[in-house]
């Protein structure tokens, strides 16, 4: 487990440095193109993009990491159990790293554009949990892909799309019920993310289910 954790964490550090670089580039670009009168909008754009990529990247990175590094690790004599636990450490490392980059980007926009932070306290904890769930989803997608190939991933993506549709529908319904569809949408997301106990319970349950699926798929994995 320790060897896998060290190896995958080395990979994760490379991802994180790349992401931090991309974040810095995004902020620099916005600084260059934004007139002072629109500073608040630039801050919103940066945090909005950082929020969406913070959820998207862990999924994609975990999804691409497993098919490359699971066979490599097993072919070098790692047990499946050892790989699985090492991958959990790497997943946590990735999720926390991305959360840290997200927070750093928020702080940078505050300092540069003078706008207040959108996510703080409970909502920031919610973002972290969201990132963790997305990383877990990416990992499961990776295992499904390794076991069932591209068709497995396609089926899984459809399933995730449906679930995301349900969640999106709930958020949309919350917005409409508040009376202002466009303006309150973000508030609804923040509201949902701020409900730490509910979100924590959902995240924990989801991660346990995904970990169960991962364990089952990893246990009999064969290197070809």
């Amino acid at each position, binding site marked *: 487990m320790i060897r896998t954790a060290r*190896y995958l964490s080395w990979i994760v550090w490379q991802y994180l440095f790349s992401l931090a670089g991309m974040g810095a580039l995004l902020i620099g670009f916005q600084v260059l193109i934004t007139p002072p009168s629109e500073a608040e909008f630039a801050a919103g754009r940066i945090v909005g993009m950082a929020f969406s990529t913070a959820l998207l990247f862990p999924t994609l990175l975990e999804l691409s990491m497993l098919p490359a590094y699971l066979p490599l690790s097993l072919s070098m*004599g790692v047990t*499946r159990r050892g790989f699985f636990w090492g991958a959990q450490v790497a997943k946590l490392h990735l999720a926390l790293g991305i959360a840290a980059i997200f927070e750093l980007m928020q702080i940078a926009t505050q300092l540069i554009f003078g706008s207040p932070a959108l996510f703080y306290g409970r909502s920031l904890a919610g973002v972290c949990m969201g990132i963790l769930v997305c990383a877990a989803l990416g990992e499961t997608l990776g295992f499904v892909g390794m076991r069932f190939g591209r068709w497995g991933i396609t089926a899984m993506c459809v399933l995730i799309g449906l679930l995301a549709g349900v969640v999106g529908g709930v958020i949309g319904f919350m917005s409409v019920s508040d009376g202002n569809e466009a303006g309150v949408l973000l508030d609804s997301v923040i509201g949902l993310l701020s409900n730490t106990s509910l979100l924590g319970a959902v995240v924990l349950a989801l991660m346990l289910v995904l970990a169960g699926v991962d364990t089952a798929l990893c246990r009999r994995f064969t290197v070809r």
Partner: protein
Amino acid sequence: MKNGVLQAENVVKRYGKKEVLHGVSLSIRPGRIYGLLGRNGAGKTTLLSILTAQNTLDSGSVTYDGENVWENQKALDEICFSRELSPMLLFGQNSIKAKEYLRAASLYYPHWDKDYADRLVSLFELDVKKPIYKLSKGMMSMVTIILALASRAPVTILDEPVAGLDVVAREQFYRLLLADYEQTRRTFIVSTHIIEEAAGVFEDIILIDKGRILEAGSCAEFVAQFHLVTGAEADVARACEGLTVVHEERLGRSVTVCARGDGERLRANTAGLDVDVEAVSLQKAFVCLTGGQKEGEA
């Protein structure tokens, strides 16, 4: 009790309904160089990946030092199975660089010898900054050879290590293998179907065909059992009395058979007969055994 023996007993493997290994049993003793020989699709890689717990088995067992190897980190730390690299992964090209493989190996193999790996990289003039998909087949083979040799694992397994290597690099590999063996006396299992060049290296051979072990034992003793007898049909038949004819070729009225059995008996049989008797190479013996039927039975 520790004995360093890697053992398979009645290993059965199925892919779907197709059984590819039929009750394979073998014992790999420490401090020997084994050649695993078999035709394409004979089950060599499947067997090796089961021996190293990289693949599952449907029944039977694989043990190292008397302990089951499946999910056994202690046992797997003593075994290195350096398999052929693939230029493709699930989502496109294998863009992992050769140096990343070496770094992974340095973390994963407990006996890893970094200095030796660096020396081999220089010797092979391998560009480790290139991703795997950009390497030629020969260069991919070099990566697997470096991984295997520098792993310093007590049981080191190489799957088709010379595939894609030119003749100079193949010679270089066999020299390195023998030098390493001389120094470390660790166990090597080399799977190959380029037999002639490797024949002088193997101490023992394991011959696998259609998922069954045909032969396992000393290479020299195995080869010594085979003889090529050429002459008129009647003379050849008399010469081969008491021996097993495993292969037969006809050229006009002349017949050449590959006979298996006691050399002393053959010499006694051939006294006064007009037949030529030749020694058989490992490759020829392998072809005779696995190449199918006697001519005319096709």
